[in-house]
């Protein structure tokens, strides 16, 4: 009896459309594009700041338009999605064993959210918002 195993083709580009779990994964991965774009914007802001107060003020003024605000909101949504989707899987990567039991995942996830809130408050404090 001859063997002739059949290898099914795999789509290099469309595989992630085949199942909702792959789409969820891609939605997490695509957040890096938006966060990367925002990081570039931050670098531009620093560059403008180095050119003096006037350059900085006009740059900030240019970012007040509705399109810019919409872009920022989009970045915020993707940043929140990135943070929450990663926080929610932290118990997998960082299990905490106490004796024979494992600490429930909600405490590990909760600790991440708590640190996130504290860090945000510190940033808002130094930014003069609080």
């Amino acid at each position: 009896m001859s063997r002739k195993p059949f290898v099914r083709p795999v789509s290099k580009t469309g595989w992630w459309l085949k199942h909702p779990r792959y789409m969820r994964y891609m939605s997490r991965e695509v957040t890096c594009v938006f966060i990367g774009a925002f990081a570039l914007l931050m670098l531009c802001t620093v560059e403008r700041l180095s050119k003096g107060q006037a350059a900085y003020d006009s740059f900030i003024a240019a970012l007040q338009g509705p399109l810019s605000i919409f872009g920022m909101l989009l970045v915020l949504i993707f940043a929140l999605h990135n943070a929450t989707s990663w926080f929610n899987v932290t118990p997998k990567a960082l299990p905490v064993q106490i004796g024979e039991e494992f600490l429930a995942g909600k405490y590990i996830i909760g600790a991440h959210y708590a640190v996130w809130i504290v860090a945000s408050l510190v940033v808002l404090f130094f930014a003069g918002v609080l």
Partner: protein
Amino acid sequence: MTQLKKRMVQLEVLRYDPEKDSEPHFQKYEVECNEEWVVLDALNAVKESLDPTLAYRWSCHMAVCGSCGMMINGEPKLSCHAFLRNYDGVIRVEPLANFPIERDLVTVADDFIDKLKRVKPYLIPKEKKTIAEGEYKQTPAQLMKYRQFSMCINCMLCYAACPEYALQPKFLGPAAITLAHRYNQDSRDGGRDERQEVIATNEGVWECSFVGACSEVCPKAVDPAGALQQVKVASTLDWFKEHLLPGGSK
């Protein structure tokens, strides 16, 4: 005695005969089944009453042997664990994705078996003991550290779910790395360095991008995705120890 409820079940099964077919094709069957049956029972009914040429693997019929993994409506499942009552309409049955098809629902598992061998999934004792010296003892807490990962039945559903393995067949894959982790976590084991050479590599754990599909389809709740992330954390700590601590090189 209560009469078991019966219903006609339609199956659409991927067939492939390497001696006749150039590529696989679907074949439809309609077979009378008990409502309490699983997909494997339906396949057995087809084989017994309609088509004795249908080829598929199975053994225990109780989610222990790991032989009867198939794609059922596109989802990797143990066919002995897929209850007919959970399916409406035509049930599409295909061989496990990401493996070559040998015949009908039988896949070629050689790649997985080779990878499994490479990670040395067995105890490599820290210190050799003679029988007279007694057993290798372990506390319940030390057992719990790896127990979950020892539940793997090598059914390969995680490989069928993993898009990384589909795109990059060199990837060692979820179950093999999880089993390496299982032994690395064992207090009696001293083989971690040997296994790290295989798993802490680009074809090993660093090929994983944490899709998490492996854990979603695992029928034994092993959580391979968790194991792989833990291997990444441990391997990263190794790197820091090796490169940043004085006298840390291996």
